[in-house]
């Protein structure tokens, strides 16, 4: 058995349709950046860019008037701003999981989707970083967050989880960009070598850094990639753990929980996979990538969604159990009076419905391979995970220790516009990425194909005719 053969025992299939040549992979992926954009791309891009306009208007108004333009008020001082921050950071996590953790576990099916997922990480983290940046009120003194010498001779308080968060998310963004760019170098060289116009050659050539596919380079490159994957794995686990400590180190019932770090990480991976799948399905149909992005990949992702949904459901249940088991009256009041039956019961129902109940359809293979269904489920999970953060933040804050200070948070139109605007930023970035950069890691996909095995010819003398015969069926839809 050679490494590219599917393992029948665990129901594996081919990751690239058998019969595809190396050239097919290059053509399928690179032509997206070379042909004029399909109409679907322009429609999506127009909508996304309009939302960016909404974002600019909302944030401009916010800077002009101050954070009072949001619905945040006593006692709900954190509301959509931090909800959106946590939601976007979480979405980023699936990208790193796919690119780093699955790489270390030698899950070769990741090669079809890792570039995509990494790009998603970067744009999601950009959207996430916007919110802590703009929610501070006086954005012109944002540099107080950094350990820089200032006129008051003060340094940041390094015991504050909010500062840990700055370092964690900042590191996460930087490492994600480095990881993504490192992976892109050989593929940028491919685009450079295919380019027919001077400016394409110049631009791709500049960023390809003079890559020649040299094996002496590949050796260091592969080692760098392995090291990046190895350090990104604990990094991604640490980032959402640190985000969760923003809450867990406080004394608010509903926040003060030791389960938060793993619970947040599981939720992050869950929501991230749902978002990868959402954009993936759109891109697959807009750019017709059926030859590289197989139903099998989607099936795998749906299994992951089911697994992480169960983890998240377990965490929800455990929060209730621990509240009861602690015997603390504030904890019990929060979980048994406020969260499922209080003023935000509807948000809690959205959360449980979308995150725990809906993904149960993925126990069935029919559901895992049904594209319209999985699109709906992925959107539902995105919504559910947004509500999870809303429930944690707003429903924990709206009834604090003194009933006299209880209040009800209502978002304003500026809240809605800012959030919708970041969705626009995310998709604008993503659409530009899909249009101008190879959205599938060509070099990595080629490395998993049978032609990449130096001993393929010796082993398969008699199977080569079979291979030649199967060339005819390349353009079939789905399946393998």
């Amino acid at each position, binding site marked *: 058995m050679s490494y590219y053969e599917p393992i029948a025992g665990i129901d594996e299939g081919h990751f690239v349709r058998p019969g595809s040549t*190396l*050239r097919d992979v*290059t053509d399928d992926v690179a032509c997206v950046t070379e042909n004029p954009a399909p109409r679907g791309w322009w429609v999506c891009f127009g909508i996304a860019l309009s939302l960016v306009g909404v974002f600019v208007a909302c944030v401009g108004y916010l800077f002009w008037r101050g954070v009072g333009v949001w619905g945040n008020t006593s006692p709900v001082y954190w509301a959509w701003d931090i909800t959106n921050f946590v939601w976007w950071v979480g979405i980023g996590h699936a990208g790193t999981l796919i690119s780093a953790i699955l790489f270390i576990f030698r899950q070769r099916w990741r090669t079809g989707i890792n570039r995509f997922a990494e790009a998603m990480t970067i744009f999601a983290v950009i959207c996430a970083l916007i919110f802590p940046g703009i929610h501070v009120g006086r954005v012109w003194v944002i540099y107080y967050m950094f*350990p820089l010498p200032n006129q008051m*001779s003060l*340094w940041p*308080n*390094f*015991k504050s*989880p909010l*500062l*840990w968060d700055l*370092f*964690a998310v*900042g*590191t996460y963004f*930087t490492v994600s960009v*480095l*990881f993504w*760019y*490192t992976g892109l170098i*050989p593929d940028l*060289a*491919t685009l*450079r*070598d*295919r380019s027919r116009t001077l400016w394409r050659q110049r631009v791709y050539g500049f960023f390809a*850094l*003079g*890559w*020649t*596919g*040299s*094996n*002496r*380079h*590949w*050796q*260091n*490159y*592969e*080692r*760098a990639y392995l*090291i*990046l994957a190895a*350090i*990104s794995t*604990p*990094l991604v686990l640490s980032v959402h753990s640190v985000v969760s*400590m923003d809450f867990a180190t406080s004394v608010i019932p509903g926040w003060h929980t030791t389960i938060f770090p793993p619970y947040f990480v599981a939720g992050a991976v869950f929501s991230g996979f749902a978002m990868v799948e959402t954009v993936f399905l759109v891109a697959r149909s807009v750019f017709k990538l059926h030859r590289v992005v197989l139903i099998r990949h989607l099936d795998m992702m749906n299994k992951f969604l089911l697994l992480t949904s169960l983890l998240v459901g377990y965490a929800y249940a455990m929060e209730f159990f621990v509240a009861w088991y602690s015997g603390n009256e504030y904890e019990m009041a929060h979980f048994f009076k406020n969260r499922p039956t209080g003023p935000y019961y509807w948000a809690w129902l959205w959360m449980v419905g979308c995150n725990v109940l809906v993904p149960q359809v993925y126990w069935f293979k029919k559901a895992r391979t049904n594209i319209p269904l999985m699109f709906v489920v992925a959107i539902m999970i995105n919504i559910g995970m947004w509500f999870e953060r809303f429930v944690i933040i707003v429903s924990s804050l709206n009834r604090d220790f003194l009933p006299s200070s209880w209040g009800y948070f209502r978002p304003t139109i500026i809240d809605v516009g800012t959030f919708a605007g970041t969705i626009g930023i995310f998709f604008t970035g993503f659409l530009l990425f899909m249009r101008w950069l190879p959205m599938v890691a060509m*070099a990595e996909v*080629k*490395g998993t194909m049978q*032609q*990449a*095995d*130096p001993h*393929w*010819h*010796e082993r398969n003398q008699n199977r080569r005719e079979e291979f030649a015969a199967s060339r005819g069926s390349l353009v079939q839809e789905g399946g393998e």
Partner: protein
Amino acid sequence: MSPTFESRRAVLLLAEFASAHDVLHAANGVREAGYVRWDAHTPFPVHGMDRAMGLRDSSLGWIVLACAITGLGGAFWMMHWMNGIDYPLVVGDKPPGAPYALPAMIPIIFELTILLSAFGAVFGMLGLNGLPRHHHPIFESERFLSATDDKFFISIEANDPRFEAEKTRALLERMNAVHVELIREATS
């Protein structure tokens, strides 16, 4: 006046191969023939090529280790000095700085260790590879454009002690090369 084609100095011999199998086989042959200044160019890393070329293990890990230690130590000293020495900050009624504040320093120590390791891995890799290098005589070849697509190449530098244009060409042709060409230095 630019020099004529023949007068330009030959810099390397470039051989094209059709498959990963052929290039690996040829790499074994070139190594056994005693060449040292040569390389294989492939669209993806070919399994077993490092051994076929007789390469030593990459030293990148040591660079990353040095960066990791710098990040770890730098983060610790930054926090200890800022909150413990320069402006002692008492939070939670605990003495400022290490060792009492050490548990609260762990997340940032960890993050900066990772950050500097990542810089070490990427920039160390580029440094070891001598990249970016946008001008290389190998780009003079038209056929070499498919080295990033679906063809496999071996290049032997003319300044290799064993290089002899005819003998080296014969060796590569014997190894199933599809096409062998002599690359001369660029005109400009």
